[in-house]
């Protein structure tokens, strides 16, 4: 199986590669359109800032390529946000796979709710979906983010922080997770191996 991990100007993709390596999967970090188009699975990781990332994708014409892909595709963290319609982070138009808005967490009470949302939180209301197969009830995953995707008809798992938001989205061949499966212990490994089996 050929797995392409999309290379762009985002931080910490190394952890995703190591996590795939632990699962015995052979992944290639690449921005070569041909390698991405012909891969069996595509992973779009990321940590960073939305407008800078979108500009980079456009310059290399990776934006159009991502929208045309047919194979199972997994966005992670910023990768999820970029698959949405629009992000409040520097008022950025994103790829629009999911007709969902990305907003900044605004705590009503900063004593109770800090931003970024950092740490282990639960995925709730899990849909019957191959990505979520054989997960325990309300599994914990590791989050680090200041922006979130709103709930939508494409939400297949939600998380509560200040309010409910989309923990995982799914539409056609596109899957996206806000948490970091590569850092989420056994639950994260299961999510990644489920994705590789889709």
């Amino acid at each position, binding site marked *: 199986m050929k797995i392409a991990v999309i290379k762009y100007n985002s931080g910490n993709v190394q*952890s995703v590669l*190591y996590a795939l390596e632990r699962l015995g999967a052979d992944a290639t970090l690449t921005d070569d359109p041909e390698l991405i188009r012909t891969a069996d699975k595509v992973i779009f990781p990321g940590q*960073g800032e939305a407008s800078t990332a979108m500009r980079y994708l456009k310059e290399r014409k990776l934006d159009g390529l991502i929208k045309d892909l047919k194979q199972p595709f997994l966005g992670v963290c910023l990768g999820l946000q970029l698959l949405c319609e629009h992000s409040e982070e520097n008022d950025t138009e994103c790829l629009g796979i999911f007709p969902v808005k990305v907003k900044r967490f605004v705590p009503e009470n900063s004593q109770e709710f800090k931003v*970024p949302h950092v*740490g*282990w939180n639960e995925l709730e209301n899990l849909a019957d979906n191959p990505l979520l197969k054989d997960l325990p009830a309300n599994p914990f995953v590791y989050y*680090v983010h200041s922006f979130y995707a709103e709930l939508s008809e494409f939400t297949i798992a939600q998380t509560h922080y200040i309010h409910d938001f989309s923990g995982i989205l799914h539409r056609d061949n596109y899957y996206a997770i806000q948490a970091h499966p590569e850092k989420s212990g056994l639950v994260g490994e299961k999510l990644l191996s489920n994705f590789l089996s889709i």
Partner: protein
Amino acid sequence: MLTKRIIPCLDIKEGRTVKGVNFVELRDAGDPVELAKIYSDEGADELVFLDITATVDKRKTLAELVTKVAKAINIPFTVGGGISTIEDVKVLLNAGADKISINSSAVKNPQIINDMAAEFGSQCIVVAIDTRNVDGIDFVHTHGGRKATLLKTQAWAQEVCDRGAGEILLTSMDHDGTKAGFSNELLAEISSALSIPVIASGGAGTMAHFKDVFTFGKADAALAASIFHFKEIGIPELKRYLVDEGVSIRS
């Protein structure tokens, strides 16, 4: 619900853990990767590696170690100790660290916090603050707590938050090593004032101390070293205790 984090801290010198550990399961008590794996399997929520290697040359060993750890464990980890430049951070993040922690270098040149946050994002910049109470006032100390500064701890914590730090690791030198409990009053004051998470360090001796630091101390995470290394408290039993006490914990 977002849970409180339990974070074992490993002191590293030239690629090996120091200060001693007492784990019967370990084949090699000095191997940080093996120890990290055990903590991760036991349910630690995160790990911190503090490098106390003095020479620049030997710090290359640190990047190699970070890669080994990143390959072996599936939970987040922070690396700190002697980090002062953007290049230092780049090397460690590229090697696989999730976050870096700066301390003395931030006091010496506070602008480095802004620069690092702009370059890598706030989420991976932890600012460690060592504090000591002098005649009723909390002052920031550097160089492992040995050197006093004129910075008041509360004001400095606010400043590093404003400059873009993602988290604060607050170590009370007055409590460190006493096993008499965390510095809950100061922690609560700082945690309440700031919009970013606070990791408490220094003073853990009993399981009740962890409950206190999460409730009275309003800490988002608690860090400890020797009580975990010497198995005085096991992470699974600590987590069971905290769950029973009604603290939000990943179990």
